[in-house]
């Protein structure tokens, strides 16, 4: 499942870049209950309790930064299991600064497996897009509010 989107934030690219390289900071933008910590500079892990509609459970997620190009690009891989299902996603974040703002294009492939994947793409896609968009919206608020 391919997902992508854009957002703009009134903050410098270096600040936005640093924010997304701090796994605790950016996972804190998840609306669902969560707990993450950094394992080392390139890896983090934790749990998030999420789901579709009333089908909810706790996913254990491992994250790896695959690409870190200062102030312009980040690629992060997320792998997780929960609810008897699997999540494997690779997200690219492309940053560009102009006139005191940073535009960020995000996109990538999300592969779901297990019973969650059988729910039907329309249902899962809608939920996934909503949650990811919520994460970036919360990130924008944090970056602009600080």
């Amino acid at each position: 499942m391919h997902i992508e989107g854009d957002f703009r934030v009134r903050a410098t690219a270096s600040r936005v870049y640093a924010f997304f390289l701090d796994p605790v900071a950016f996972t804190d933008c998840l609306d669902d209950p969560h707990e993450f910590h950094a394992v080392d500079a390139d890896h983090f892990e934790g749990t998030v309790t999420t789901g579709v509609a009333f089908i909810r459970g706790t996913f254990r997620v491992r994250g790896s930064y695959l690409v870190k190009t200062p102030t312009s690009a980040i690629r992060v891989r997320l792998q997780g299991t929960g609810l008897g299902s699997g999540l494997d996603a690779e997200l690219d974040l492309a940053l560009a600064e102009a006139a005191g703002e940073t535009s960020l294009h995000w996109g990538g492939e999300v592969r779901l497996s297990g019973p969650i994947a059988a729910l039907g793409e329309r249902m899962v896609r809608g939920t996934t897009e909503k949650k990811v968009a919520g994460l970036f919206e919360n990130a924008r608020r944090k970056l602009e509010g600080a």
Partner: protein
Amino acid sequence: MAQPETVHGGIGQSIPRKEDARFIRGKGNYVDDVDLPGMLFLDLVRSPYAHAKITALRKEKALAVPGVLAVITGADLAAAKLAWMPTLMSDTQMVLPTDEVMFQGQEVAGVVATDRYAAADGVAAVEVDYDPLPVVVDPFKALEPGAPVLRGDKGKKDNHIWHWEVGDKAATEKALKESAVVIKERLYIPRIHVSSIETCGCVAQVDAMGKLTVWMTTQAPHAIRTVFALVSGLPENQIRIISPDIGGGFGGKVPVYPGYVIAVVAALTTGQPVKWVEDRTGNLTADSFARDYHIEAEMGATKDGKLTALRVKTLADHGYTDAAANPSKFPAGLFHIITGSYPFATAFVEVDAAYTNKPPGGIAYRCSFRVTEAAYTIERLVENMAHKLKIDPAEFRLKNFIPPEAFPFQSALGWTYDSGNYGGALKKAMAMIGYDELRKEQAEKRKRGELMGIGISSFTEIVGAGPAKQFDILGLKMFDSAEVRIHPTGKVIARLGTKSQGQGHETTYAQILAEELGISSDFISIEEGDTDTAPYGLGTYASRSTPTSGAAAAMAARKIRDKAAKIAAQMLEVSPDDIEWKDHKFQVKGVPDKSKTMAEVAFAAYTTPLEGMEAGLEAVDYYNPPNLTFPFGSYICAVDVDKETGQVKVRRFVAVDDCGVIINPTIVDGQIQGGLTMGFAPAMMEEIPYDADGNNRAGSFLEYLLPTAVETPKWETGKTTTPSPHHPFGAKGVGESATVGAPAAIVNAVLDALEPYGVTNIDIPLSAHKVWKAIHSKDAA
């Protein structure tokens, strides 16, 4: 002339099923009803990935869950050399993986806890890290060079499992070349699941003497005991398998599933009884599947409509291991019954099997080893050939059937059919449905642009496996057995090597014995499924119980009669040569009022045994059938198709079956009605599809569509009777006929409705969307 006396509950009587007295009161005893003191519960961690490396498995958090006592992993089993086990087709399958998972839903670890909830919480707390690997879903792609090799553990260099062929390749090639008309069709029969009401499960217990008892949902308890003994190294006398009441098997409860083995290991390691009962999603995603055959078939005929030759090439998707329950010599089962009801001069069939990242496939879902695939193929092609030649499909079949006088008939692919009257069955079905009137109605509707279709399926089944010289599973010959004892008061207990899963054995076997012994079936108790008490047998599947154990019951009864005749002669003070078994009692020849009943003889056998003769009255028979039996039938289906929506409505369905001598007409009718519904289901609704990542898209009954009473058509049934000449009382078996014969009739009817559009095939299940697409793609063309 005096009418022969009948015995209550003898052969041919529609007595109520004896077992229903407990079932309808909710008094059945299923595995999940077994409740032992101190019993623990097993739940399973399953893989979310279709193919992945396990990079880490941590059980600490699960062990911290209150109530969780143990977490069993592949590494634990490997230490005991139990991580792998043999399949019934001599392949190997994982009990639990040590480093790689091969299909979504595969068992990854077992959690043992004091209650089911704690076990489920423990499952959620087991941490498994996976590294996804490339997934092979399509069996054709699996065989392409460069495809990921799934079974490197076996030293394989590709995903090809086996090639099997039968028939005369050159003669078939020549005959097809010389045929005036040749048709070719590609058919896909998708994966489906037996979906029995009761899922699989077991309770394993080790007693103080070290004896292992397993109550389990198995259709073949004796064979399972032997497999357990061979795999575990436990002495076979220290293993007792009990199959209690079973809520449907349909072939799905023949294989050995990892949950059974893990439960046994858990019982051995904890010293407490352990229960495992899988949930519906586990059942639908991990237990063995049926079908999944990709078939390419060619058929030749003369210009005037005589069939000449048949050639079939098939690719079988077996998932990650070949766990089919076929007889050893026949890796594609009895697929070579594919010449069906027709006397082809020559035929050739080849099947290749491939590994994919799916659960094990290849079990016989109510179809006696791939017979549904065969019957579907031949009946679809015969119908297409009739259309191609513009001959009425009924007339075409009547012209081509093996004639009754040709039996016993040797088929082009090597089977010797025992008996048949195919024309008789089809003519009866035509009369019941009003075939000529339906054709007239169809012609009128076509003029008005309405879509109505009539489809026929005149199938030949092959059941009763089987003769020991040809049939074995893991080397165990496929005989079956009965042990019959008459008590002093003339009441009977009989134990048999098969195991009912709802078929009504307690009634059917009692009726056979009632007929043979002259004792009311009310006084005959039937026991099956306990390996400590029943004689060894290969179990119930493939419609084999009546042809094998039913025959064994009759033969054991006749052995008893032979002994009893001598006792009766003594009682009647005549020579044994002057005694005859007539009207269900021993009579002095020519003096019918000088007679003794079996009950009278039984009392004497225990109270005044003859000198030189053992006391008692009992016998055992291990019946090795001289041949298989070949039930048959003709089904006619009439459908209406909505041109605008593609919706199919089965308006009429007439099923005429011939299963030889019928023991209990009500039970047979029930078997046929249930079987027809299970034939309607894959034709119209059932399928287990997988996406490109190997995700099972039908892991619950929300997506795996079973027909309810609302969707199920009204079945109209009829019968003809053509006894099997080699069976002791002429029976053939019927459990699977309707499932085998129904799909082709339904699909043929839909395609007949769509004939104006030139559509020759739509792969099952015939969803409204597929039918609509077929209509409208031809419209556009």
